């Protein structure tokens, strides 16, 4: 009995404390910043499939941005008090939904960053709209964020399915071969990717001679049926386009090599790939593969310097998602600095139409029409093993796709 009383007392105390904390920062009318501080929230996958390409290292990237912002503005900074809140959404839309609401309401978060997994990303967009707070999506691919689910407070920062398909589909059709066989995981993301790729290939004068939706998740881990079928199609495809991601991509590529499709004249193009995927497959397994990258760490001196600093912090090279988190946090802080307030509507006004160049965004522009952040994208090719001279330097950039061409025109479905 005594124990029960003790527990009850303890929880009451906790409630009291959190209650006070939540109600504490009452902003006065003349105050520029709510609570006199800025809180950035990083909501992403910290234990599952995307925890390496974004995860905790994205939090590190945001912390780097805060440090750089403070160093740059010193005494002139709008506030000294900038902190990061973070949570694991486990790639589940419902978890993302409640964590996002908690961040905005209870943790005083001004901006939510990252949020990979399209279904979770769309949920958070709804929360941002409802709470009238800012949200920069980086990790998710769906074009719906700037299509029919767009809203005033949501910005889509790094990439989307159109960018991937347009870059890889068009350039590979022009440079490698016109006939494609497409293999995709049979669920929302894969089907979207297949549609985007087919459209880009046809527009570039190529044709899709065959396509198959593989089971998702593919419990047998076997793709040989499709890989055997590909070279025998008529006309013979010159490119196998795989839309699988993560471990499934690894399975496809391992078996593509086993069946020696490259020797049979079928090249490989990958829908979505991160530097971490190349690292786990080894460049030897992927040599010659083309894909579209939103950013590459060893592209130029600016990127390399950032990558060196990032490596010092984390022990690994940054993926494009890490660099984009850094850039997004920085651009938000600069916008608050310029506006002198963290009032969401004022900051949005300052961001809309802004042209930006930074470590991640090249020829970047924050489109006012749909809040798509456009920037140069890169058609990349995995180097042969012999040309890899240092760890993580696995890719050469074949072509820079100018910002205006890399992304689709604003969708008519989007009404901010």
């Amino acid at each position: 009995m005594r124990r029960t009383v003790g527990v009850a007392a303890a929880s009451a105390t906790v409630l009291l404390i959190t209650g006070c904390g939540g109600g504490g920062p009452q902003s006065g009318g003349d105050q520029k910043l709510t609570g006199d501080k800025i809180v950035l929230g990083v909501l992403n996958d910290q234990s599952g499939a995307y925890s390496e390409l974004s995860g905790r290292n994205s939090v590190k990237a945001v912390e780097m941005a805060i440090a750089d912002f403070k160093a740059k503005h010193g005494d002139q900074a709008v506030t000294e008090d900038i902190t990061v809140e973070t949570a694991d959404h486990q790639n589940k839309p419902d978890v993302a939904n409640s964590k996002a609401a908690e961040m905005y309401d209870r943790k005083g978060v001004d901006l939510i960053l990252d949020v990979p997994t399209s279904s979770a990303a769309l949920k958070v967009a709804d929360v941002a709209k409802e709470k009238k707070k800012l949200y920069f999506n980086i990790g998710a691919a769906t074009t719906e964020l700037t299509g029919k689910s767009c809203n005033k407070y949501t910005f889509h920062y790094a990439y989307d399915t159109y960018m991937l398909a347009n870059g890889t589909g068009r350039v590979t059709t022009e440079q490698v071969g016109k006939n494609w066989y497409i293999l995709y995981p049979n669920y929302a993301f894969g089907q979207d990717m297949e549609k985007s790729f087919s459209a880009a290939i046809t527009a570039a004068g190529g044709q899709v001679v065959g396509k198959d939706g593989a089971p998702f998740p593919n419990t047998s881990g076997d793709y040989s049926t499709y890989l055997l079928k590909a070279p025998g199609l008529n006309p013979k495809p010159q490119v196998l386009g795989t839309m699988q991601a993560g471990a499934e991509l690894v399975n496809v590529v391992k078996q593509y090599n086993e069946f020696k499709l490259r020797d049979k004249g079928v090249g490989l193009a990958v829908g979505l790939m991160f530097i971490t995927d190349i690292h786990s497959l080894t460049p030897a397994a992927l040599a010659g593969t083309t894909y579209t990258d939103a950013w590459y760490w060893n592209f130029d001196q600016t990127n390399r310097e950032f990558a060196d600093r990032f490596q010092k912090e984390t022990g690994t090279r940054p993926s494009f998602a890490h660099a984009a988190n850094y850039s997004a946090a920085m651009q938000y802080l600069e916008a608050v600095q310029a506006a002198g307030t963290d009032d969401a509507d004022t900051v949005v006004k300052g961001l809309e139409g802004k042209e930006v160049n930074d470590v991640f965004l090249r020829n970047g522009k924050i489109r006012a029409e749909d809040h798509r952040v456009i920037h140069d994208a890169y058609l990349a090719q995995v180097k042969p093993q012999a040309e890899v001279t240092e760890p993580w330097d696995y890719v050469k950039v074949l072509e820079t796709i100018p910002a205006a061409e890399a992304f689709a025109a604003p969708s008519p479905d989007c009404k901010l």
Partner: protein
Amino acid sequence: MTGFLQNTFNGLVSGAFYALLALGLAVIFGMLRVVNFAHGAFYMLGAFGAYVLLSEAGVPFWAALVIMPLGLGLLGMALERAVVHRLTRLDPLYNFLLTFGLTLILQDLVKSRYGVQSSPYATPSALSGSVDFGLFDFPTYRVFILGFAVLVCVAVWWTLTRTRVGMVVRAATERPELTPAFGINVGRWVTPVFGFGIALAGLAGVLAAPMRAVNPLMGADLIIVVFAVVVIGGLGSIFGSVAAGFGIGLVQAWGEAYLSSFPIVSQTIVFVVMAVVLLWRPAGLFGREEAPA
């Protein structure tokens, strides 16, 4: 025709993995009445072990093929002694939960050390070519897996039918209450049999490393199908598990090849087969219905 043969071959290769895993589950269930949910985790440890041995100690595939099953077999025996045998007297559900918990612990241990990203593992160079079968050529490594798995299955079958150990195991499997009455110390064989089942899972894992994504969740994805295989073959039936393993591999491969326009069918075909088999023969294809108590 060539296409059909190739798909058949592929089905048998997938089936080889199912057969090795189901065989281990079957001997463990037969001897201990334990449904070992952690089987997939040991398969994962086999593959991961091969990767760690290669990348951190330079131990080649061939050595890993011996070291990992042995090491995991010993680990399995230790686990049996430490925890599993304490629960065998209770409702089988307790061991099911225990092994499920073990799975989560093993997966997360690997995850916390190596992350979720797949780890690289190359095909051993001696097996990286392809074999010409006249009508078509086929990756050497796949031919090797198929041959090796068949060899292991035959060796297990020989041990079970021709040796004294095998007779004890079979007797204990088929009449668990009666066997000790003949003065046979069944308990002495429980631990080695558990270890042996685990070793088979580890072996399958090492074999999978060059052709499948090596990551902490690789076993979790596969084990569901393997359970279906064991149920189809008949829980505890050793021949049934092997036959059903190869059979399901074939059904999946043919399903993907010839029913690809009906993705719903090709994705669920294993479970459709399982449902049909259970309706027709509730004890599985080769299982014997237990006499009512």
